[in-house]
């Protein structure tokens, strides 16, 4: 091949790349891997196939690795990257990314499609920063075979009551999980732990994923919230050193100390906790709704309900993944048009049918009963039990979770006492949320 031929080939390749870039002018940086990517690809195909869509507003997708995704995104946004027009955001990171993004106006249908609770997961300082695409919340997963056997056996009930008296100071009766309080959750976990009850069919009563990781704090938060706990009061004072957090943290600590959760669980995150439950050696656990398929497949007798209740009611942490507008976007008009379309019922239903998990209002979810019955439950729990802590979408929300993860896991692992953990958490949160 001569030099001129090489030059011509190179020029042709560059021209092809340039024409491709001109063809797809709205670039979306999505959440890679898993159902979110498949769903986004499906709706993008529908959008790009629209006859009235200008060629320069067609959408192309960009995916990187999940590992360190939000760290990389943080750096890209701060550097004013124009590599993407639309980027992924999550409830807990909106405040951090908001300075590098533009607020958007959703379609007129958005309120009816998603409902206010879900739309709020994409809001910061009263402005909408994204279209909610996927909703995450928590289920209580339990084994119906174990619970049914316990409820049907008087001797087992007596043993349950005896264990509750010994460790919780009161005789308790086993109940159906839908009626559980957190005390019932603890009593059940103790009963199904072999080191406490040698007749237990499972090695552990529960598994608490307690790696020093911010996502694990989200799983834990439903517990103190049901006792009235919150990050801040309305005046902005940090309220984490409260009876609610003390009660929840102490109850969880009891499970660690008594071996009702695997001793390694201070190094567990999502995958390890699921593996523990899937092995059949764990009786019940609180886990993300995304695990439903995996856990039900592994243990056929698995059923789900909302997390246990406390004196203030039943709660589940919710957060959304969504897509928002990069402030440095080169094609804002095209990007806004795509985001507005994403917030329509047409897009939300297509996204759900393709495997995504949008938090939909009851009426919209009802249209998916045949295809995605699980989304009906997700939508119902989100609107009935969903909460976001005060300050949960602030600029430093991620850092607050990080600080809590460090201190709370330290308490559970026995490296510090409860007073120290709460004192350090309060100091860190005061600094972060000032």
């Amino acid at each position, binding site marked *: 091949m001569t030099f001129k031929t090489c030059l011509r080939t190179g020029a042709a390749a560059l021209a092809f790349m340039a024409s491709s870039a001109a063809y797809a002018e709205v670039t979306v940086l999505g959440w890679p891997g898993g159902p979110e990517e498949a769903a986004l690809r499906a709706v993008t195909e529908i959008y790009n196939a629209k006859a009235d869509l200008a060629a320069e507003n067609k959408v192309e997708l960009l995916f990187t690795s999940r590992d360190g995704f939000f760290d990389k995104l943080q750096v890209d946004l701060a550097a004013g990257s124009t590599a993407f027009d639309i980027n992924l955001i999550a409830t807990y990171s909106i405040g951090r990314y908001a300075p590098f993004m533009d607020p958007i106006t959703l379609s007129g249908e958005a309120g009816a499609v998603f409902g206010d609770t879900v739309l709020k997961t994409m809001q910061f300082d009263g402005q909408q920063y994204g279209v909610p695409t996927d909703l995450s919340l928590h289920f209580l997963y339990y084994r119906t075979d174990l619970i049914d056997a316990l409820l049907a056996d008087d001797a087992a009930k007596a043993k349950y009551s005896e264990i509750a008296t010994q460790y919780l100071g009161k005789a308790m009766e086993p109940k159906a999980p839908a009626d559980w309080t957190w005390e019932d959750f603890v009593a059940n976990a103790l009963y199904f732990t072999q080191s406490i009850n040698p007749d237990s069919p499972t090695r552990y009563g529960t598994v608490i994923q307690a790696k020093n990781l911010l996502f694990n704090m989200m799983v834990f938060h439903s517990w103190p919230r049901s006792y009235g706990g919150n990050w801040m009061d309305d005046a902005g004072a940090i309220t984490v050193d409260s009876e609610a957090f003390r009660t929840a943290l102490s109850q969880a600590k009891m499970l660690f100390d008594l071996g009702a959760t695997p001793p390694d669980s201070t190094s567990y995150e999502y995958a390890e906790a699921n593996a523990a439950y899937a092995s059949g050696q764990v009786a019940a656990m609180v886990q993300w709704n995304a695990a439903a398929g995996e856990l039900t497949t592994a243990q056929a007798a698995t059923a789900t309900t909302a997390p246990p209740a406390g004196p203030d009611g039943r709660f589940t942490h919710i957060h959304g993944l969504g897509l928002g507008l990069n402030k440095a976007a080169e094609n804002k008009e095209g990007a806004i048009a795509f985001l507005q379309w994403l917030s329509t019922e047409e897009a939300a239903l297509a996204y759900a049918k393709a495997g995504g998990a949008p938090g939909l209002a009851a009426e919209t979810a009802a249209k998916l009963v045949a295809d995605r019955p699980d989304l009906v439950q997700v939508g119902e729990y989100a609107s009935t039990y969903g909460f976001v802590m005060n300050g949960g979408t602030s600029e430093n929300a991620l850092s607050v979770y990080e600080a809590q993860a460090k201190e709370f896991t*330290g308490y559970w692992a026995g490296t510090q006492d409860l007073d120290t953990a709460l004192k350090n958490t309060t100091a860190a949160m005061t600094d972060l949320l000032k």
Partner: protein
Amino acid sequence: MTPGRSFENAILAGPLVLFLLAILGFPTVLSLVYGFSETSFQTLTTPQFSGLRNFRDVTADPTFWQAAWFSLRFGAITAILQCGLGLALAVYLAPLTQRHGWTVAILIIPMIVAPAMMGLMYRLVLHEFAGPVPHYLYSWLGWSPSFLGPANVFKTVIVAETLQWTPFAFLLFLTAYQSIPQDLREAAAVDGTRPWRLFWKIELPLMMPTVFVALFIRFIDGFRVFDNIYTLVGAGPGGSTTSMSIYIYETFLRRGEIGKAIAAAILLFITAFVILSVAQRLLWGRSA
């Protein structure tokens, strides 16, 4: 050197100097600016000079000292274990490796695996419900230690690091051992020197410079450990497995305290520089 020659040299060296300035000089200057400024991701382009505040914040942060203590212990213990084991293996297996060179390739396999992958592998292998090690311990003994629980996690990461990097020390010691002149050994044998005395009085003293170099390299590597611990257990409950590198990473990216993270990195650099200088002087002192 004539002025014309000097000009030629400047032109020839120019691209390299510019390259080094861009690759090393710019980040260094930027780090110094950020280290002495109040900087977050929001103010990357407008850092506010804050004097020594970041350094005061870092040195007043108990987590920094916890991380420094962890790194110091981890670096020292793993360096001693790896060098001890590497030396023993090199000497004990010397006859075998001399006859069958391919055995060395087998022994250094752990070193080839990326540390992050090693961390992920142990995360699977040691998992109570999915890992083979606890599985067989439960099958055979009806019990298994919690390898990654609070009581054992430090020992586990020490063992993981030692298993991976002992081959590096082994390779250094094997090379040093094989370079000892054979006539020294023969002369000692003629004088009736027993093997242990031969090792202690002749071979080990000749290998001491290599021992120091190996200890030093392994300590530095252990002190700055990041990937295998981070992928295995993260920062640990209560920050119990937070090394200096993990501290800097989390401060920078997770908490967005860029100035503070850079200040910690500068302190780490100064510490490493001092240790390097002292070690170099010691080595020179021995060889002089």
